[in-house]
């Protein structure tokens, strides 16, 4: 049984939980931040979780953030996002207490707003538009598990950001259908892993998962590779050969970088999609195949179609209307902690890190045990046999502020390198106060990120501005500045740390950028409204 605090202006959530999730003890509902603090301070047991509404229909004097000069409209605005202000105050008081924001989702991304108000790794969002008690129950159980140290994060696609949740919902549905699935997104966002580990198991097919990266198959051999060939079909074809389609029969075929498929291969692929049969190169016999086709590209396929490089009829057969776009890593700030644990969890199984961990353990006299990763604020309490790899908040801020042009691939390399260097240093120097904690210092990560920065960023970012005459040069220059600040804000999804990293080379200088932003008369509220 967990102790869960409800902060909500209504009783309905409390009633629902008492009826459908009676296994926990509920405190509240607190109608305001002040009431929540009273309950937090008065509770004899430590709380396990907070369920927090966002919209509070309460009198102005009970709201956080109200100022005497505010209009009724502004106060109403505060009511609509009161939960986010409460979240910010809560985070100052109880840093690691998990909080689920229970508001229904809508066009305005509550994640983005919450992130600006101090949401972090222990802030969660309802997994559905409406409260579905089964998923809420499961979500609570997973959060409580995580709090007790059980890792629940799945692979890279298991993010909490709304875009990732919608992506999973959509793919679960598309996987069951017979039409192809098209995965879009920049390189390194995990398209291949998503196809293999998420889509294929949900197709309900018993056949194999076969993956072909068309960017690595010689163009001359692509058709034979996909459709098979008979002896003598081409120079070097010394025997009959089965293609990827036949290998994947009854299962899933993943074609990565579909834009690289040469024109003869495109024609054959179209024929397979239309007829459901393949003919090996050089053969006359048609063979029926039944595969779930998943294709992926980081290219602009419609542009290739327009330029005549990709067949329009094939493109339409690939089900572009239902294409699923994977977000770049820079849009998944809330998931970085989980991704870090997943990525390093994999890396720690490798020989290099395992050996270093052994050396650190020997030096620290820790004995046998596990390696745990802690990210964000505070230092974890010692646990028997546990070696902590600590990623302090300042280090995490650097990770969140980086643009990650190489996405997950770059993230995995940077974080593994950082862990490697931190462990190597710890293995060569006697530990400090806590021999069981290896810290990944911000400076180390900053250096790695600097090296990883692509040349385009190093040589300066090009931001187009429109020059218009004004009364003074100062006005002209301010107008230009406003334009590029505005553009950078949109490009960085409102992340001032990322803007500071770009403008000042220091992600910690976000406040400076925000100040200048305000001086220029730019209002985050207006830009968010535009974004919505």
């Amino acid at each position, binding site marked *: 049984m967990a102790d869960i605090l409800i902060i909500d202006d*209504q009783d*309905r959530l409390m009633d*629902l939980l008492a009826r*459908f999730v009676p296994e926990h003890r509920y405190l509240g509902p607190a*109608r305001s931040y002040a009431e929540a603090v009273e309950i937090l301070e008065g509770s004899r047991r430590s709380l396990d979780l907070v369920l927090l509404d966002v919209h509070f*229909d309460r009198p102005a004097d009970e709201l956080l953030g109200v100022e005497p000069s505010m209009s009724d409209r502004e106060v109403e605005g505060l*009511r609509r996002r009161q939960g986010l202000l409460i979240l910010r105050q809560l985070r100052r008081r109880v840093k690691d207490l998990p909080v689920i924001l229970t508001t229904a989702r809508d*066009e305005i991304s509550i994640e983005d707003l919450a992130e600006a108000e101090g949401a972090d790794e222990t802030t969660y969002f309802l997994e559905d538009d409406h*409260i579905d*008690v089964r998923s809420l129950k499961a979500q609570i159980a997973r959060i409580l598990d995580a709090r007790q140290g059980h890792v629940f994060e799945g692979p890279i696609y298991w993010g909490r950001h709304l875009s990732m949740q919608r992506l999973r919902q959509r793919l679960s549905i598309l996987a069951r259908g017979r039409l192809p699935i098209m995965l879009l997104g920049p390189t390194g966002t995990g398209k291949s892993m998503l196809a293999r580990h998420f889509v294929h198991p949900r197709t309900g097919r018993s056949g194999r998962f076969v993956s072909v990266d068309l960017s690595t198959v010689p163009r001359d051999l692509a058709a034979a590779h996909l459709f098979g060939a008979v002896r003598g079909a081409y120079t070097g074809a010394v025997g009959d050969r089965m293609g990827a389609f036949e290998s994947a029969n009854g299962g899933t075929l993943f074609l990565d970088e579909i834009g690289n498929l040469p024109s003869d291969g495109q024609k054959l692929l179209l024929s397979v999609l239309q007829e459901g049969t393949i003919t090996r190169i050089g053969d006359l016999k048609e063979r029926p195949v039944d595969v779930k086709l998943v294709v992926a590209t980081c290219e602009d396929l419609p542009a290739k179609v327009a330029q005549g490089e990709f067949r329009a009829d094939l493109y339409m057969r690939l089900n572009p209307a239902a294409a699923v776009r994977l977000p770049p890593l820079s849009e998944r700030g809330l998931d970085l902690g989980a991704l870090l644990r997943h990525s390093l969890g994999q890396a720690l199984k490798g020989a290099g890190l395992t050996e270093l961990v052994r050396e650190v353990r020997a030096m620290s006299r820790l004995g046998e045990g596990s390696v745990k990763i802690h990210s964000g604020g505070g230092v974890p309490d010692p646990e028997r046999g546990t070696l902590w790899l600590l990623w302090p908040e300042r280090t995490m801020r650097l990770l969140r502020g980086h643009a990650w042009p190489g996405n997950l691939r770059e993230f995995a390399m940077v974080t593994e390198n950082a862990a490697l260097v931190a462990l190597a240093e710890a293995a060569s120097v006697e530990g400090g106060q806590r021999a069981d904690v290896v810290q990944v210092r911000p400076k180390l990560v900053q250096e790695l990120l600097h090296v990883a920065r692509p040349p385009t960023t190093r040589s300066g970012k090009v931001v187009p501005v429109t020059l218009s005459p004004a009364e003074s040069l100062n006005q002209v220059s301010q107008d230009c500045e406003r334009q590029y600040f505005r553009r950078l804000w949109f490009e960085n999804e409102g992340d001032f740390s990322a803007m500071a990293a770009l403008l000042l080379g220091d992600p910690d200088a976000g406040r400076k950028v925000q100040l200048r932003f305000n001086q220029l008369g730019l209002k985050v509220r207006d830009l968010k409204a535009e974004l919505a």
Partner: protein
Amino acid sequence: MARPEASSLDPVPPLRALSERLQHDLSRYLAFQSRCVESHAPPELLREVLADDLLRTRRGPDGELDAAQIWAPLRDALAPLRARGGLGEAERALSDLQAAMAVIEGLVTALRAGTLPDEELPEAHRCAIRASDAARVASRALRNLPEAARG
């Protein structure tokens, strides 16, 4: 009857506020518990969740409001906007919502009077979810109204 919450009784609110009231006050809570059970759930459970959703649609420190009490001021606030016309898709959504809420008003009366028979509970349950969905659609339609139609 308990006193309604202050901000729910605001005079005719602007369009955005109306859209948000439809979502927050009506859509969210109209089927809050109904969505957690199936239509073929035991009649006692269906009756309890319907009573919570339709008779105590909003319940807080200031009292309770049933679905009809929440809908009435919203309907009145929407009336001048609809009378002016030119709402396009939004008018269809509002018309669907009005039809769905007319059914809900009947259910509120029947539930309160204890005259809703067990065999009609599954359909009532579906109606609550339909009305919640209709309120959501109407809320979005209002929010997406082009500038010209806002008046």
